[in-house]
């Protein structure tokens, strides 16, 4: 039982390296579900914006706007409207310009990488039995990054898991600076949060 291992060879991908590097100084990413929060997120310190809702077929203008603001974009394939969580859906998002694609479907990780995007696998953990199956699933799917939800309980969860050697993002109920500090100290490389109070937080402060 331990926290996270050293980054895997996949981290050598330049795009993934840049993604992780951005989190080093500003580890909190904005998780948004609409246009309103997008404006606030783009004006904040967050390095990466996670789009969890909206029309997946019309993301290109948003991605362009975010890139102009110096932000990276990760889009959630399973949650945006209009797309199916399959290879074609992956291709659509990638060609919309997103930098990373999130999905709970481990079998899509390679397809996401093949499209040139960073592959983030979302793990939804509610029971102990999910932890055991999650490790097996991760070994097969080999994501670039794992996002664990609910992230606020990451310290307890990692104690129950064997080392799996993939950078971890923590999302869900992380709402305060104290929450963020705790999950980062547990080994997360970043936090995804819808709480604007964290969007301007610098870990070094």
């Amino acid at each position, binding site marked *: 039982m331990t926290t996270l291992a050293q980054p895997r060879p996949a981290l050598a991908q330049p795009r993934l390296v840049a993604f992780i590097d951005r989190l080093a100084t500003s580890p909190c990413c904005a998780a948004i579900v609409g246009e309103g929060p997008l404006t606030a997120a783009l004006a904040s310190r967050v390095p990466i914006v996670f789009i969890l809702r909206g029309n997946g077929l019309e993301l290109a203008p948003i991605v362009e706007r975010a890139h102009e603001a110096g932000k990276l974009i990760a889009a959630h394939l399973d949650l945006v409207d209009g797309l199916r969580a399959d290879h074609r859906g992956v291709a659509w998002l990638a060609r919309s310009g997103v930098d990373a694609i999130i999905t709970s479907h481990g079998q899509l990780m390679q397809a996401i990488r093949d499209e040139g995007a960073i592959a983030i696998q979302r793990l939804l*953990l*509610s029971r102990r039995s999910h932890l055991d199956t999650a490790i097996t699933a991760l070994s097969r799917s080999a994501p670039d990054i794992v996002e664990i939800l609910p992230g*606020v309980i990451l310290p307890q969860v990692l104690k129950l898991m064997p080392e799996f050697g993939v950078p971890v993002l923590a999302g869900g*109920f992380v709402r305060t600076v104290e929450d963020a500090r705790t999950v980062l100290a547990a080994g997360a490389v970043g936090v995804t949060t819808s709480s604007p109070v964290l969007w301007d937080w610098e870990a070094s402060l």
Partner: protein
Amino acid sequence: MTFAGTLPARRPLPRILVADDGRHPIEPAVELDHGLLLRDTDLSVVVARAASAPIQLAVDIDTVRGLGADEAAVEFIVRRLGIEIVLTRRSATALHAAELGGLALLHVLAFDSTGLHRSLDGHPRTAGVGTVVSPGLVLSHMSDGELASLSRPILGYGLMTEPDDIDGCLAIADGVVLRPDPARHYASMRGIGARPEGNVLTTVDAR
């Protein structure tokens, strides 16, 4: 058809429900305010437990192999087997269990605040229908508003292993679900059932 009122008042939720898949029958010590949660098991095991278990039973009806989640299934569990606590992800199932005089607990997934609110949209919010929150560990991180939105009784379910985490959950929830090992550890750490014969949870043959 409503049976509410024709049965005795609903029993309170035990503080601890020990998860039981039927493979390793268990019986918590009498000192523990406990029950057994039958889950991930077969219908035949549920029937056997109902006939023989000496403590209060609950069933996670969606995970019982061979059992539906329709009205007939609920009536079988509550009226025929006398298992009064029913956990389910389906609002209609929960409502029917409550109408029969049982205590229904609607399962909501709390991975993030957005998902929690969406999950609670389907809650019937009526007498006899409480809330199961998974993972239970997250309860102590919820806002006052989120906690107020949960219909009681509240059952914390999932990922609780350490006694302090269990206590934290019990400070908010009315009960928790524990696997046998954490339940045994919790009981020993809190001085419950620390008797010479050893195990707080004693194996019994319930098949």
